[in-house]
């Protein structure tokens, strides 16, 4: 499950072909250790979303190499057959908006993922409740998403991202809609989860409130990444 986190080497992505081709990624190198939370900062058009989509096995890169834990998942071509299973089991997503399924209650929203993987319903729900408790939102276990506050919804979304204990979590602007207190709470939870479950977490953000908390930051510009040491401010 854990392992060596995620490593990307020389990732390239070209849209289109011939004269109208656009190189969104021109050779990206990245490395996140298990238990580490790194930031990914870049302006729009820098290839940020494309990188995230490649990492999330949603689109196919043009060239490069991606390693997840001990497994090479991409090496100038997908090395796994079932991308969807990959997404389900190995990659967790936390979005800008919670994107909870509105017709499932909080527990089932989180329990859905293991159920899809074949885990019996009781066991799935037990695990979900465990995570919800860890995120201090278990008192809303039976509520429908619409009844939750923004922050509660976000925490449930994080629980969903974590439930299959994926080695990697991709968080896309998770604090954008939140105020500073809530934003700090989310970053704190992410760090706690990363520690506890040895998950490598990549947080795409340009939220000034949380950037100081990262120990390492990747900047991306014109399809290339630059590493930078962050402030590593402690989270209260």
């Amino acid at each position, binding site marked *: 499950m854990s392992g060596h986190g995620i490593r990307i080497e020389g990732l390239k992505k070209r849209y289109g072909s011939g004269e109208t081709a656009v190189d969104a990624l021109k050779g990206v190198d990245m490395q996140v250790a298990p238990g580490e939370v790194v930031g990914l900062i870049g302006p*729009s058009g820098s290839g940020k*979303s494309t990188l*995230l*989509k490649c990492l*999330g096995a*949603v*689109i196919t890169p043009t060239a490069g190499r991606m390693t997840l834990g001990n497994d090479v998942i991409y090496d100038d071509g997908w090395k796994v057959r079932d991308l*969807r*299973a990959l*997404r*389900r*089991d190995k990659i967790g*997503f936390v*979005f*800008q908006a919670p*994107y909870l*399924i*509105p*017709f*499932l209650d909080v527990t*089932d929203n989180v329990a*859905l*993922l293991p*159920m*899809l*993987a074949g885990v019996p*319903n009781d066991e799935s729900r037990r695990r979900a409740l465990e995570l919800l408790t860890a995120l201090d939102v278990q008192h809303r276990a039976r509520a*429908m998403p619409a009844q939750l506050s923004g922050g509660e919804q976000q925490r449930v979304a994080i629980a*969903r991202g974590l439930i299959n204990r994926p080695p990697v979590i991709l968080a*896309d*602007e998770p604090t954008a809609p939140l105020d500073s207190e809530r934003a700090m709470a989310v970053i704190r939870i992410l760090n706690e989860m990363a520690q506890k479950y040895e998950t490598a977490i990549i947080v795409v953000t340009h939220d000034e409130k949380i950037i100081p908390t990262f120990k390492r930051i990747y900047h991306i510009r014109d399809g290339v990444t630059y590493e930078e040491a962050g402030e590593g401010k402690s989270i209260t």
Partner: protein
Amino acid sequence: MISLAGRDILHTWGKFVFTGVGLGLLIGVTLVMAGVYRGMIDDGKALLDNSGADLWVVQKDTLGPYAESSSVYDDLWRGIRTIPGVAAAANITYLTMQVAKGDKDVRVMVVGIMAGEPGLPGWPPYLVAGRQITRGHYEAVADIATGFKLGDTLTIRRNHYTVVGLTRRMVSSGGDPMVFIPLKDAQEAQFLKDNDAILMQRRRTEANPAFNRPGVPGLLDAVIASQTTNNYVNAVLVRIAPGYTPQEVAEPIRRWKRLTVYDRAQMEGILIGKLIATAAKQIGMFLVILAAVSVAIIAFIIYTLTMDKIREIAVLKLIGTRNRTIAAMIMQQALALGLIGFAVGKITATFAAPLFPKYVLLISQDAIVGFIAVMVISALASLAAIRMALKVDPAEAIGG
């Protein structure tokens, strides 16, 4: 695994049931339309069944007595009665007219039945209230669709008739309810004109020197009397004795050269083939249009239901839900919608059918065909929606 379709329905059950009811009403209208079509055909069959006749003897070369007017002498039945194979022969007249009911008019078919006993061809075969006619004049048996009740008085031409019996489902091929009165009264009603016209005719006859000869007293009176008698009926109904075929009995009658004889099959052909054909085709076309509209609306509803969930579907795909699971969710919802729609439609049709002015016949065959059609259409419509759902790019869930 939980049922995503079930959960979604539970969550938005109001919208779902409401949509189902709306769809159901449309399906109900389609079923009723089919019922109207069948009802028209049944009206024609009911008319033939209720007459109790196996053969209809009418004026030569006419399609009467229902599709065309036909006049035969009223003593013809005696000759027909003696033909071997004839168990019963009876005169009958039909006249469609307005009958006063309170201050409203009711359109009825007045049937003149020959004096005799219940069981004679032309007499109402069964009653729902009251009794059959026992007096030779001024009594009537009316169908309940006219709105008359036992003891009511109805006026036909000059005379008043007391309603002594009620029938059900006695209608003309056009759906007009029937009123049975004694033949002699009906003959008078059919051929005797109103008072003004009679006075005019008398004056014309008096002014005619050929009829008003002073040397022949009584001539004028005799001529006037002959103008006001009526010796015609519209048809003779014949019932065939057991052991004889319709052809055996019809041929001798046809050979009399002044009469045309139709058997049951030919009458059905005339009534349903000629009389009802145009109206039936009209309704048939409307039915096809309604069915097409229903198909379009079911497809549209299912498509819209799916479109409403497109974001959730993208998220589901992104987090790793199998295509199969998503497809099953959409298909299940479509079938559930179709089921609710059909149930509501069938129930609405059954309760609405008796309220229509003409007979609406809902048969199980139509319901079963309708059910299969609705289910198939729902499934097919869901396929289109599924195709759209599966094409959704999960990357859309991740912002630009």
